[in-house]
């Protein structure tokens, strides 16, 4: 099945890394104030780069600062230290060059699909007719032409997220940021959406930074994976552990999920993430005889 | 679409503001004389002349504005009307608050229509000792109650007064919250009818002349438009004659009843409680004598009452609130 020679994969990755850096992340850190006056450091000293045309995923356990990171990159949050560079220039604040897709769809409920996709174009000062025809192309790209005049409440979760992607893409962003975009979808839709996303990425000149906590998703989609670690006794904040190349050929197919390189990568990341999970003592739970519970129910 | 409706809304806002500004414009000489009148038989009687067009005949342009009693005084004090129908005592209250005015016409004296109505079981003023009485503090019924207490050798300290708007007195008595109320018609009558066993234990008939009902004109208006006011005053005897002439009495009652929106038969019952003043009576009452037989004497009593009860503290001269000249000039 995936008998693609390793060289072609590694040469592809090498070629990718030789592309110009779209998004540079330089020593980024985020500290939140606590109500009691102290502070929590969600993230510190994170540095990595995303290259042009690259599909990069960020993975890490819950609470390791993934959302903080991507919100800083989207400009929705200010970094407490370090900086972000877009095409080599320091950048901050929200801006359509760094498009964002949220887990919670965030479609404007009062606008139809078409108007949602037109939103960013009109904010950019584009005239109605041009915005409309461009928006229709993007809607076509995500396969929702039939639903252009429908309100979001009439769409399924997967469709909503496709509209959100079209909406972000319509602005022709330099990089598309996605924060667990498929986290709220059921397994089947999620798999479908992954395939859609890869297709779109293939067809459009696009760089993606994709956050997830799902290992399979991270590997299946990515060229490279940034593994973030949760705070530990030694490092009391979220931090970058490692960046892993994914040794899988493109285009990706579902069969690759069971391929040895895939499983090896998965084991490696699991090792990274899990090695820090120390079994903890918890209070013993009270013992209840099942029969008792059963009796109650019946 | 949104933009055009916004524009429409803006137009509305400007219109509203303009409306307020227009309404706030001061009264000018070119306007009709504005008289605020309210629900009291002596003043409802003006409707006869209004409906019959007698003011036009007399060559005076008068605009009557129908109001509640207290709001009518407020409008007068704010300078929004030229004249208001009030009791002589309340005219002093407005004067003490800085609104100088002259009573140019006496409509009537209350002759039973102002009442102290007590619930069943209380049959005299003496029975009120230690009881709660609801009335509008500082206004005419308060004065009448004090007169009643005085006549029975009592003082305000012997009772507990509760401030109740006159319009609400019937319900207040019915609710049992007070033992008696002070009110004028139609409220006093409503209280009598709606509270079983209640009784008028004291009325203005017991102190005739305590309450004179007059037309008070602002000093400015009287100063600048005296000829018009003379024409205004000249119509009143015609109204009184129309009410008292047995041939026209029924029509008079019908017109008055229509003003207050009640059946004529019902309204007719209120008339005996009001003694209408014809020219002769008015001329006599305008004489500067002591005692309740003259407005001045009555106003002096009211003034003493008002000072004693701290309704106001200003030293005012009751004589300055009267202008008998227009009535004295009548044939």
């Amino acid at each position, binding site marked *: 099945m995936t008998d693609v020679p390793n060289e072609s994969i590694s040469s592809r990755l090498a070629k990718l890394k030789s592309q110009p850096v779209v998004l540079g992340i330089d020593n980024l850190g985020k500290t939140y104030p606590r109500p009691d006056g102290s502070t929590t450091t969600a993230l510190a000293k994170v540095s990595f780069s995303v290259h042009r045309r690259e599909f990069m995923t960020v993975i890490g356990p819950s609470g390791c600062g993934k959302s903080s990171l991507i919100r800083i990159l*989207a400009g929705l949050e200010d970094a407490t230290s370090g900086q972000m560079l877009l095409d080599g220039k320091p950048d901050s604040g929200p801006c359509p060059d760094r498009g*964002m897709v949220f887990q919670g769809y965030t479609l404007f409920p009062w606008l139809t699909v078409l108007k949602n996709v037109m939103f960013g174009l009109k904010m950019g000062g584009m005239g109605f007719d041009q915005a409309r025809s461009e928006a229709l192309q993007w809607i076509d790209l995500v396969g929702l032409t039939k639903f252009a005049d429908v309100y979001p409440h*009439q769409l399924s979760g997967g469709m909503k997220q496709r509209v959100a992607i079209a*909406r972000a893409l319509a602005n022709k962003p330099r990089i598309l940021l996605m924060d667990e975009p498929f986290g709220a979808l059921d397994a089947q839709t999620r798999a479908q959406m992954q395939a859609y996303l890869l297709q779109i990425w293939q067809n459009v000149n696009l760089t993606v930074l994709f956050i997830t906590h799902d290992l399979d998703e991270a590997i299946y989609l990515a060229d490279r994976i940034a593994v973030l670690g949760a705070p530990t006794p030694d490092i009391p904040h979220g931090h970058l552990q490692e960046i892993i190349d994914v040794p899988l050929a493109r285009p990706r197919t579902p069969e690759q999920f069971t391929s040895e390189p895939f499983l090896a990568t998965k084991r490696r990341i699991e090792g990274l993430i899990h090695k820090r999970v120390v079994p903890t003592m918890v209070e013993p739970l009270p013992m209840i005889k099942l029969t008792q519970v059963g009796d109650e129910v019946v | 679409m949104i933009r055009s409706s916004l524009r429409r809304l803006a137009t509305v806002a400007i219109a509203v503001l303009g409306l307020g500004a227009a309404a706030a414009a001061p009264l000018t000489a070119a306007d009709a004389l504005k008289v605020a009148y309210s629900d009291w038989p002596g003043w409802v009687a003006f409707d006869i002349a209004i*409906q019959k067009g007698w003011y036009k005949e007399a060559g005076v342009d008068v605009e009557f504005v*129908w109001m509640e009693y207290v709001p009518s005084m407020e409008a007068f004090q704010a300078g929004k009307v030229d004249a208001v129908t009030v009791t002589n005592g309340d005219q002093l209250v407005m004067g003490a608050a800085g609104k100088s005015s002259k009573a140019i016409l006496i409509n009537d004296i209350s002759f039973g229509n102002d009442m102290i109505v007590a619930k069943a079981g209380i049959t005299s003023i003496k029975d009120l000792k230690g009881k709660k009485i609801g009335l509008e503090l500082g206004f005419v019924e308060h004065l009448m109650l004090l007169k009643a207490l005085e006549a029975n050798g009592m003082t305000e300290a012997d009772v507990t007064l509760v401030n109740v708007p006159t319009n609400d007195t019937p319900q207040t008595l019915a609710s049992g919250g007070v033992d008696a109320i002070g009110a004028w018609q139609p409220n006093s009558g*409503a209280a009598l009818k709606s509270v*079983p066993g209640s009784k008028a234990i004291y009325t203005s008939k017991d102190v005739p002349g305590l309450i004179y009902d007059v037309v008070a004109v602002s000093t400015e208006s009287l100063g600048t438009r005296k000829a018009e006011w003379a024409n205004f005053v000249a119509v009143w005897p015609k109204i009184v004659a129309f009410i008292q002439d047995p041939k026209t009495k029924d029509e008079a009652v019908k017109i008055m009843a229509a003003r207050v929106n009640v059946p004529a038969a019902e309204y007719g019952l209120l008339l005996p409680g009001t003694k209408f003043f014809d020219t002769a009576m008015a001329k006599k009452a305008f004489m500067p004598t002591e005692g309740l037989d003259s407005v001045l004497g009555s106003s002096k009593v009211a003034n003493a009452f008002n000072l004693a009860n701290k309704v106001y503290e200003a030293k005012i001269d009751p004589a300055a609130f009267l202008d008998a000249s227009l009535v004295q000039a009548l044939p």
Partner: protein
Amino acid sequence: MAERWFAVRRDLSPRRQTLLTVGAFVLPLLVWCVISYVPFVWHPLITVTNPGGSSFLAKDMMIDRGMFAAENAKVVAEGKPAAEGYRSNPVFLPPPHAVGRALYTAFLTPPVRKGEPWLHESLWHSLTIIFWGFTAAAIIGVPIGVLCGTFDFFAKLTEPFVDFIRYMPAPAFGALMVAVCGINDGPKIAIIFIGTFFQLVLVVANTTRQTDRALLEAAQTLGAKGRHLVLHVVLPGILPNLYNDLRILLGWAWTYLIVAELIGASSGISYFINQQGKYRNYDNVFAGIIMIGMIGLITDQVLAILGRVLFPWQGKPPGKLGKIILACVGLFRRKKVAV
């Protein structure tokens, strides 16, 4: 499975909903009928038909039952004929048929007095007072409320004062408003304005604060900034809630009408109610109250349906009436295009 009447946060079937809605009106009416027509329910008074030997009782007098019994016992003990009467309710509670008749005749009886408005003209006058007072409050209050809800600057600048002044009873400003706005409609409109404006600012500010932060962030990443965020995200986002707020506040406006119409020149439906109350015509008073209630109910229902037409993205079905409105709007639009 049989449908349950009590299920936490579940809609009942349309049939049951209608049933309950009808019941909501029929039950109070039934209670009112029972109290009015069943002689042994309440009826705390006796209306005297024949005073008999009593010197104190008189025909048509209404008297407390206990007192009537005591008086009668006394009269009988003195060997005089007993008084007669029937049980009745206080005049404050007229029976339904009297109110029904009053409602019916109120509109058909021409005003006795020359120049006096018909009842429907009085009602219309009241409606215009409400309309202008409320519209002015909304026109000025909504933008201020939205600004307060959007920018903390405006919230801190205005809200404490607004919060302070909204506790002041609007009717207390009556005399001042007459001094400022004259004696005609000005002060009445002003009272409605004062009564609703300050509440409105706070309510709108609160609603504005409920704007979904995620939508604001999404809009920002799409390039929306400053006033565009307010105009294209905050405003449309809160519009349905704002609309509902205004619906509720419109009810408040009505509660101020009753005082507003008694300052300055008396006018409108409140004057009708007040005047009829003074002369104890409580059937007319009730008729007036019911008219206000019906107007309120009808406007609110119409506004609710209109709301579903105006905000189709909420996914609430517009209902039959709404569909008719939509069809009319559609016709209108097509015509416009054709022209």
